[in-house]
Every structure is written in C-alpha cells, then in structure tokens.
C-alpha cells in the first residue's frame, strides 16, 4: 500500500472528526443549560426565564444542526475510508454506533424539532420534558460514541477468529464497562459542559459590557458559572482518572505524553516542561517535579512506570510472538477445517500479539519473511510522536485548570458580590470564549495521535486499516470536505454573530409587561441573590 494513501485518509479523518467536534461540545452543554433554564421558568413562572430559554435555544439550534450534519460523515466514513478496519473490528465497533442511533440519536433528533416548533402546541411541563429529552439524548449519544472509541484505546472483550479473519466480540459486558470508556465519557461530556458555560458566560459578559439585556445576562452568568464550576472540576478529576487507567492499559501513550524515555525508579518524577528529542530519545532542559508522575500514574510510591525504551524492547518481543500466531493463521487459512488441532492451539496461545506481526506488513507482504532490521523498525514504530503529545497535553491541562479558576471567580461574584462584575473580568470572559474548543481539540489529539501507530491499540495498525482507494479519490473528497466545511463554518459563525447581536428578541413585549407590573418587587430583588443557584438541581 502506498503510504500517501494512508496519510491522506488520516488527514481526512482528522479534518472531519475535529470539525465535527467544534459543534458537539456546545451541543452537549448548551442542551443541559437550556433545559435548566426552562425548568426554572416552569418552577417560577417568570417570563425572563422563558426568554432566556428561547434565546439560548436559538443559538443552540444554529450550532446543533451542524453537529448533526457533520456527524453523518462520521457514521459513514469508516466504511468509505477505513474498509479493512470496518471489516476487521465491525463485529465489536459497529454495535455501540448502532445502539447510539437506537437509544440516543433518535431521541434527541425527534424531540429537537418539537422543542422549536412545539411552544404553542405543548403545555409548559410537556415542553420542559422535551427540552430534557433532547439534552439526555445528546449526552447518551456521547456515551455510546465513547464506548466505541474507548474500545479502540483498550480493546477488551474480543478475540480474533481465524475463520472469519476478524476480531469478534466475546463479552459485550466488558466492552460496555471498559474502564477507559467510562472515564473518557465523563471527561468528554464535562468538557462539553465547560465549553457551553464559557460560551454563555462570554456572550452574557458582552451584553453587560454593552449595557444591554442585563437581566438575561446576569441570570445566565449565575447559571453558567455554577454549572461550569462543577463541570470544570469534573473534567480535571476525570482527566486524572484517564491518566491512571492509561498507566496499565496504554503504557506507551502515557510514556510518550510524559516524554519518559527511561524507566525511572518509583515514584517517577513528572516533567513539567522540557524539549523532547525523538531521535536522541531524551528530553532537553527538563524541569522535573519529584514523585508527581508516580503518584498520578500509579497512585502508589512503589510501582514503576515503564519508559519508552523498555516498551520498545517489549514491542519487539511481541512482534516475534505475533509472528508465531501469524504463521499458524496462514496454515489455518490454507487448510480450513482440516487444520491440525495443534496448529489451532498454537494460534490461540499467541493470537494476542497477532497485531504486532501485522506492523511488519508495511515493510514486507509476508511478515514471516521480515528481516531483523525490519523487526527493529516495526518496534520503533510503536512510539508515537513524543513532542506534539508532550506539548498538546500540557497546554490542555493548563487550560483545564484555568477554567476552574474562571468559573470559581464568576461563581463567587454572582453568589456573594450581588452579581457585580468588574469590567476587566467581563472583557476577559469575552476573550476566552475560544479556549474551551482549543482544549477539547487538543484532548482528542492526545487521545488519537497518542494511539498511533494503531487504529485499535495492539490489534490493528493504522497503515493496514485504510481502504484501497486511489489517491485521486482521496484528493477529490479531501478538497471537497475542506471547501464545503469552510463555507459552512463561515455561515454558521456569521449567523451566530447575527443572533447574538440581535439579542433576546422573542416575547419582549410579554416580558416587558410583566416587568412593569412587578417593577417594584423586582427593584428590591435585583440583584437577586435567590436567583443565583441552579434551582433545577
């Protein structure tokens, strides 16, 4: 296979997946924030909360539709661009995708239309239920997608079947309760909640700077900062959980992120900053924090975390072991039912490392003919690009911690300082709007780039997974997606800006009338401390 084809396929996947995830986190979080606001409306009967629901709901809708549209590409491009992957692991990987459709996506998509069109056709409580069903559907969607992705990181509950030449499910339960998937799910949806909170905070801050829609803006900040604070804490805690599970499920990824070339005596230090050098296999100018890595990675003072060099040596052994399985597999493929039992037993004993033998396929057609040099090269291939992972991870972590600080500050001002926000903080809130998206994309980069050279860790190499298309096919679709997605992005952002400028236009008369009637009461209550919590909880 030409290496160009695999690279183009990877570029296309990266482009479409990262573009899709521009919209998903806002959908995840905003759907819940909107449902919370509508719940407050139903409980308090104050039109301002209905106005908020409708305003943020409109922005939610503009964003949601692109999440849906770009998600279609995700569902189909495994078959289009990764056909060998689809064949090889479809028996396991396809199931969560289908369940996502059945259980989650149908729910959110069916009710989202009613959310926008049902205001006059449903009772207040019914409409609130619809908002919650949309939010629940969106979040369940994420659960199943991350179960699928978690399996690529930590392929449990499956084994290779030589008769069908693919991985087959042995335990649905293990796939479902894969520890990697569960930690990733909470980490990812929490990141979505932070994204939406920062977005609501930033837009509301803009209104306060411009001195308009102040009632809506203050209440929105109160909701967003409380929700955002809880979510930002959860992102960091579950991110740590992901790191802990990586220390026994994806040792190479962890070592690469930390640029740990050598196995360090326990407890290992954490390299806060440094310049990893892949060729020399060392990190220049490293600033180390003693013990920290061992504590995060193993939660003990005595357990070692293996370094990259030791892991490469381990990979080499696995390649040699995988070759035994590969040899047996070729005999089984040749003789089918007539295969001697001893060959099948040999295969089963070594099949866990079959994927490592497949790493040789990009050097020789038949891995059994690989030279010693090629085996060494394949073992070296199991190290992902260290420097990009090292930096992407650190930037993501810094952003993650700063969200806690931002949310805590606004939560404090909203709860205990009568919703008075200094001007500098409002400008800062507007300026940081893009940062949660950057953090989320970095997170996916670490997860997916860190898994290389595998599509399914230890099972199927990326180079083998791609479809045998022509370069021209790929160039056409890559250019097509690039142009098409860029145009849609410009249109989306321009509509968002237009509707943010326009502000909460719906039910203004109704809201005003209500405000007049209750003017006196409102004046005594604004800024109203009773409105600061999230009553939906």
């Amino acid at each position: 296979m030409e290496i160009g084809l695999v690279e183009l396929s990877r570029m296309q996947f990266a482009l479409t997946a990262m573009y899709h995830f521009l919209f998903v986190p806002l959908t995840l979080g905003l759907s819940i924030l909107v449902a919370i606001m509508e719940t407050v409306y139903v409980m308090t009967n104050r039109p301002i909360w209905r106005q908020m629901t409708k305003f943020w709901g409109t922005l939610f809708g503009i964003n949601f539709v692109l999440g849906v549209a770009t998600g279609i590409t995700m569902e189909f491009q495994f078959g289009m661009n990764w056909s060998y992957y689809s064949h090889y692991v479809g028996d396991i990987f396809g199931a969560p995708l289908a369940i996502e459709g059945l259980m989650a996506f149908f729910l959110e998509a069916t009710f989202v239309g009613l959310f926008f069109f049902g205001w006059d056709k449903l009772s207040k409580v019914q409409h609130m239920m619809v908002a919650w069903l949309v939010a629940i559907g969106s979040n369940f969607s994420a659960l199943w997608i991350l179960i699928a992705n978690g399996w690529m990181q930590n392929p449990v509950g499956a084994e290779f079947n030589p008769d069908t030449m693919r991985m087959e499910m042995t335990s649905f339960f293990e796939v479902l309760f894969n520890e990697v998937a569960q930690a990733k799910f909470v980490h990812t949806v929490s990141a979505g909640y932070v994204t939406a909170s920062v977005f609501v905070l930033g837009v509301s801050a803009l209104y306060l700077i411009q001195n308009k829609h102040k009632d809506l803006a203050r209440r929105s900040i109160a909701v967003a900062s409380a929700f955002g604070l809880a979510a930002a804490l959860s992102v960091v805690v579950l991110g740590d959980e992901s790191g802990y599970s990586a220390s026994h499920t994806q040792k190479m990824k962890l070592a690469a992120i930390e640029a740990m070339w050598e196995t360090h005596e326990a407890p290992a230090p954490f390299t806060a900053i440094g310049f990893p050098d892949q060729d020399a296999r060392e990190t220049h100018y490293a600033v180390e924090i003693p013990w920290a890595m061992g504590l995060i990675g193993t939660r003990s003072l005595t357990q070692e975390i293996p370094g990259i060099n030791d892991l490469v040596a381990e990979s080499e052994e696995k390649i040699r072991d995988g070759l035994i399985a590969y040899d047996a597999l070729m005999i089984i493929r040749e003789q089918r039912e007539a295969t001697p039992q001893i060959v099948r037993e040999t295969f089963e004993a070594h099949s866990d490392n079959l994927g490592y033998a497949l790493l040789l396929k990009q050097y020789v057609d038949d891995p059994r003919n690989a030279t010693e040099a090629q085996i060494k090269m394949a073992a070296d291939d199991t190290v992902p690009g260290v420097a990009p992972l090292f930096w992407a991870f650190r930037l993501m972590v810094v952003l993650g911690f700063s969200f806690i600080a931002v949310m805590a500050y606004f939560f404090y001002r909203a709860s205990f300082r009568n919703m008075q926000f200094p001007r500098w903080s409002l400008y800062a809130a507007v300026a940081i709007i893009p940062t949660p998206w950057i953090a989320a994309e970095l997170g996916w980069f670490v997860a997916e780039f860190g898994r290389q050279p595998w599509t399914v860790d230890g099972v199927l190499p990326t180079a083998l997974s791609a479809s045998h298309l022509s370069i021209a096919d790929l160039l056409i679709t890559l250019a097509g997606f690039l142009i098409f997605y860029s145009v849609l992005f410009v249109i989306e952002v321009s509509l968002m800006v237009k509707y943010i400028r326009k502000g909460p236009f719906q039910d203004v008369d109704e809201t005003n009338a209500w405000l007049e009637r209750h003017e006196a009461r409102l004046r005594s209550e604004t800024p109203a401390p009773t409105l600061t919590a999230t009553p939906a909880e």
Partner: protein
Amino acid sequence: MILFELIDYDILRVIWWALLGVLLIGFALTDGFDMGVGALLPFVAKTDVERRVAINTVGPVWEGNQVWFILGGGAIFAAWPPLYAVSFSGFYLAMFVVLAAFIVRPVAFKYRSKRDDATWRTRWDWALFAGGAVPALLFGVAVGNVLLGVPFYLTEDLMPMYPGNFAIKFIGLLRPFALLAGVVSLSMLLMHGAAWLSLKAEGIVAERARAIGIKAGIVAAGGYALAGLWMAVGIDGFALGEVVANGPSNPLYSEVIRGGSWLSAYADRPWIAIAPIMGFAGIALAVLGLKAGREVSTLLWSKMGILGIISSVGLTMFPFILPSTLDPKSSLTVWDASSSHQTLFIMLVVTAIFMPLILMYTAWVYKVLWGKVTEAQVTENADTVY
C-alpha cells in the same frame, strides 16, 4: 455467555436481513417525503411564503426522519460489517455526493429563513432541491448497481479491492439499468412527497403537488414494470452453490454461480409476488387518491407502494446482499456476511427494546404536530418557524 444460543445463527441472520429491510423502508417512508418535498420545492412553491409553507410541513420532523439513514449506516456496520466495508468504499465518490447532500440539507432547513434576504433564501432553496433530488436518484442507482453486480473482490485477508480508475468507476455506476432504477426511486419519492404536501399543505401548493405527484406515480409504475422486464430478459442473476446457513461469516468459503435470472426466485418462492403486487397497487391507489384529493389514505397507499417496491428487490435477491461481477465467489450473502452469532443476538435484544419506543414517541410527535401548515401560521410566526 450462552444466552445467545437461544436463537440459531441462521435464524438471527434472516431476522437481521429483514431488519435491514425494515430500516431501509423506514428511511424511505419517513425521510422519503422530506426528500420528495425538497425535490418538489421549486415546482410547487413559487413565492417566499409558499416555499415556507412547503418547508414547514417537514420542518419539525426531518431531523428525526434523517436518523433512519444514520441508524441504517450504524446497523449495517453492526450486523453486516463486510457489507458496510465493501459497499461504502466501493461506491466511494457516489457516497461522498450523498453525504454532501445530507449535510447541506439540514443546514438549508435551519438557516434558510434566518436572514431576510431574497438571494440568501433562493440559494438555500436550491440546496434543498439538490439535497432532496440527488440522493433520491442516487439511492435508486445504487440499488440498480447491486442488482447488476458490483466489480469488487476480496483478498485472502478479506480486504476489499476495487481495481480500476476512479473516474471510470464513478461514471461506471451510471449504467442504463441503474439509471432506470434511479428514475424509479426519484419518481416514487416525488409521488410520496406530493402525497405528504397534499395532506399537510393547502391551496395552490397542495394543488400543484397533486398534479406533479400523479405524473410521478405513473412514471414510477412504468419504470418499475420496465425494470422487471429488463431483469427477465437482459440481466444475469447469481446463484449460491451449497448453502451453509450456520457457517462462519467468510464470503470466500462459499461457491457462487453466475447466470440464470434473478426472477427465477419467483418460481422457487411464489409467495414473494406479493411484494411487486403491493408496489403496483399502492402506486395506483395513491395516484387515484391524488386525483380525487383524498389526503390521509393517499399517503398510506403511497407508503404501501414504496414498501412493495423496496421489499421486492430484497426478496428477489435473497440470499444475496451484494453480488460481485469480478469474482462471484466474493459475493456477500445473508449466510456469509453477517456479524458473529453473539453480536447479532445482542443487537436484536437492543433493537427489540428500543425500536418500539422509537415508534411510540415518533407517533406522539406526529400527533402533536397534526394539522395543516397554513400561510397565516408562517407569516405570524415568521421569526420562529423555518
């Protein structure tokens, strides 16, 4: 887990073959009228208000309807992985065009009326037209190609291969018979869209829709009959050598013979003639209903027509799912292209729980939205509807 052995592998495979049909038909029946309305848009609605009426008849439901398409993709992946792998990569550029249509369509629905600008709106109207008409045509073309056989083969490792130049492969899909199948699917969905508009819109929009729907129905029935004749005289079928219904899912393990006619299935299993009969009868009754101005019953007849036509394709080809012209041995069939026994069982349990729920809440949503979309409604709620 021993539980999955409750249902035999071959029975699960037949159930999942039927469920594949259910999903495709569910997609055609629901999203089909969305595509039909999109394709009809420039012809049934001339002014902005008329167009908004037509668009808002599907406004609240297209999103849910489109999930049938996405679920179809997911279910093929889960239950028929080789089919997912071979067909989507084999029809690569055609799939890209379909994806583009399905990406632009939701955006067009949502964004069209968000600006008060005639050029902006006209552009999105054309996007809705293309987003409806192009996939409606291409789905038929794909089915036509499946009946003719697709030029792919599987290597010993079961890697799907499609030799040949990409442009020739793409143009090669547009064979005369496949185009005829495309005409059938497009006209069938135009008729379905017209039946929907006749129920949900009123006045001039509904009237124009009915006039076009009648013609589309006649074209669909004529094209379907012609395709049947063509298959009887001009197209080679495929036949399976020895049937091993419980064997491993490895297409290369079975023998496939090229030749004979697909239509010999009607001699072997005469009961399947019910499908084409339903197809013709449904279309005929829908056309008569459009003429007479009946609303609810017309939509139901149109649904029956579509159900008959789509299921006739599957029943005629059984047990084949994707035959290969290059290497008949590589052809995918019900007996050798499914997921494992356990996966099929788990997916069946999940489907048995959630499919009834989906049907229930979808029915509830349609009930809430029952009633015609009028020009007055669109003008009064100009800011909130599409």
